[in-house]
């Protein structure tokens, strides 16, 4: 068993999970929802094994390092964290249908990584040879994943809220029947960001600590750093929106979606469109 075979199995499992959640949405059959979450669990397990195996394989190649060193490895890890946060949320709140709006993110990541990227294990460049890599990447991506889940929930919120406003329509109501009430969606959105915000904060701080240790500057307004701060500002605004008249509900949901768009730009856009210190992430 190689890690790359396991990653392919993972991708397939996420595809199956996503399709099952779509079917669950349409059919409202509880068994299909259970099958969906089972496929998600299976994929998560396979991917956990695959990441561990890739880590081991890198040692066998003599260039041993945690599989978090380039774009391929980070996209794979991102998909893993998204499913992890979704599964944890499901364990606690049991709103399976959220999977239909969250699994596509994980599947997109895995499919892009497996089909469109060089999957080879490469030795670690000197700039990344530090334990801070592990702390920094893990905290950042767990945060990003929580924001991905929050974004999925916010999309559901907006669909549901628009539907509630415009009154019942026969065709839609069956699809929306499985949606939790908007009050619950608003609450789940907040809870997901409550997980993501402290992790992003930790991610920025570990990044600053690492930069200070490696370069002597904890903050240099490099595009990646600045974009992570932009993301932080957006979610800080989201957290304050709850207590501000005129900002609750739809506007907060939009903030959550904009926050995730900024997150994705911080993660991918900066490497693709702007130059800076995080260039190794763009290869």
């Amino acid at each position, binding site marked *: 068993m190689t890690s790359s075979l396991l990653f392919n199995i993972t991708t397939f499992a996420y595809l199956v999970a996503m399709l099952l959640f779509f079917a669950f949405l349409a059919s409202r059959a509880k068994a299909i929802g259970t099958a969906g979450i089972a496929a998600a669990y299976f994929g998560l397990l396979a991917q956990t094994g695959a990441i561990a195996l890739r880590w081991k394989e890198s040692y066998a190649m003599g260039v041993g390092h945690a599989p978090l060193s380039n774009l391929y490895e980070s996209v794979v890890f991102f998909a893993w964290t998204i499913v992890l946060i979704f599964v944890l949320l499901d364990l606690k709140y049991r709103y399976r249908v959220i999977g239909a709006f969250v699994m596509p993110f994980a599947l997109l990541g895995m499919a892009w990584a497996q089909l469109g990227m060089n999957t080879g294990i490469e030795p670690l460049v*000197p700039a990344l040879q530090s334990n801070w890599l592990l702390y920094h990447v893990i905290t950042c991506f767990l945060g990003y994943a929580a924001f991905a889940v929050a974004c999925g929930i916010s999309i559901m919120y907006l669909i549901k809220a628009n539907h509630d406003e415009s009154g019942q329509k026969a065709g839609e109501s069956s699809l929306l029947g499985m949606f939790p009430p908007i009050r619950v969606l608003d609450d789940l959105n907040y809870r997901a960001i409550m997980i993501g915000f402290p992790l992003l904060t930790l991610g920025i701080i570990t990044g600053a600590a690492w930069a*200070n240790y490696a*370069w002597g500057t904890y903050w240099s307004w490099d595009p990646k750093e600045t974009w992570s701060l932009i993301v932080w500002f957006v979610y800080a605004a989201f957290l304050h929106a709850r207590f501000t008249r005129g900002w609750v509900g739809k506007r907060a949901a939009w903030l959550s979606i904009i926050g995730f768009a900024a997150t994705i730009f911080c993660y991918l856009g900066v490497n693709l469109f702007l130059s800076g210190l995080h260039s190794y992430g763009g290869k």
Partner: protein
Amino acid sequence: MTSKQRNLPQSLWDLFCSLKLTMSLLISLALTSIIGTIIPQGPPPQEYLEQISPAKFKLYQSLGFFDMYHSWWFILLLGLLTANLVSCSIKRLPHIWQTIIRPETVMTSALEQSLGAVVSVSSKIKPELLKEKVAAFLRAEFAEPVTTEVDGAWHLFAQKTPWCRLAVYFVHLSVIVIFIGAIIGSLFGYKGFVNITEGQSIDKVVSRAGKEINLGFSLRCDQFSVAYYTTGAPREFKSILTVLENGKPVPDYTNARIVVNDPLTYKGITFYQSSYGNAGDYFFTVSDLDGKNAASLTVNGTSSATLPDGSSMHVLEATEDVSAYVPGLSGPAAQVEIHPPQGKSETIVVYANHPEQNIQQARERKGSPVLQYKGARKRMYTGLQVAKDPGVWVVWLGCLLMVVGVYAAFFLSHRRIWVRIRNGSVTIGGNASKNQGAFRQYLDQLAEKLTSHLSREEHP
């Protein structure tokens, strides 16, 4: 008129205490920060200047876009945010403080109505004893209660983690602490850069602002080396450094090894491996085509030399054996670039063992002198980032405060329980600063537990 005068400070205060201002400041900061990630920061490079029109350049410069994170308006936004969060804290903190320090220990009917969760339990146990039993129950299951007697009724009050209500103020404070750390760093610290050639030492560095700074000691580079993976990718950039005080090596800082991600700190100044290059000397002889007027010429790897005909040259790279690059030839060779006073510069290879090739090349260049390569003395230089930042620990303190504060603000809840015992009826009310739904369930379970606890006491 007087009312207007009184109103201005009041409305300004209201503005600074408003969350609407917080929202607009956070969104403004997020939006404006994008500018500096698109427009290059620092002195704009030539290629960029060619891309934009002079009018645009003037506009950008007057708005401070080339150093936007230190521009007056960005600092103003940060200042307004600071003023905003200080004002909000000043306005709300006294009330929160009272809630923590002087909690209401008696459940009046007004309080009872305001509570999210209220349950009642009845018992036949005598009031005095019942009070003791309920107090013991709260002590064991929740927290130590305070007991008060009012109008023949017993009131018990117990609470958990009241201080977590302060967490959000600690988060706000942490932002200010981080700003203070950053200000200390910019006032009393510096960032600089220095190149040291192997075998040489320096006692000054150049700061980013272009100022020369005396270190107060000397730093020598003993060696610089690069190690590679088998794939050819670099694995390690390493400098061996020695700190010298009055020309003498300092014991614990002799032959200290620094690599990327592992710097050297001495007397609060830290040296980081940042770049490297060749500072070796290359030796040539220069002569006329017929071999007359031969003179030796030494060219340093970091500079260029002038030839008799007025052109300048510098060395691009050199090898001990050229056969791998030029089949049929062997021995040392150097690739040099020659810039004639007029005309185009060109790149040629100068050999040590093939004088005929060197003469041939000189002929082709018409009248330029013949170069003969004599070998090299290899020497590297290491490029070090230098930083002194006495404010960095204040920044870390702020970060710690922020992490702990955010955790407490999100995940801890101030939970309060009031109990009133009157005429054999026990009324339990409570509320939580977070997650009321879960707390209501908790209170219901607590009431059930108390019921069975009391009934066991009634019928032993």
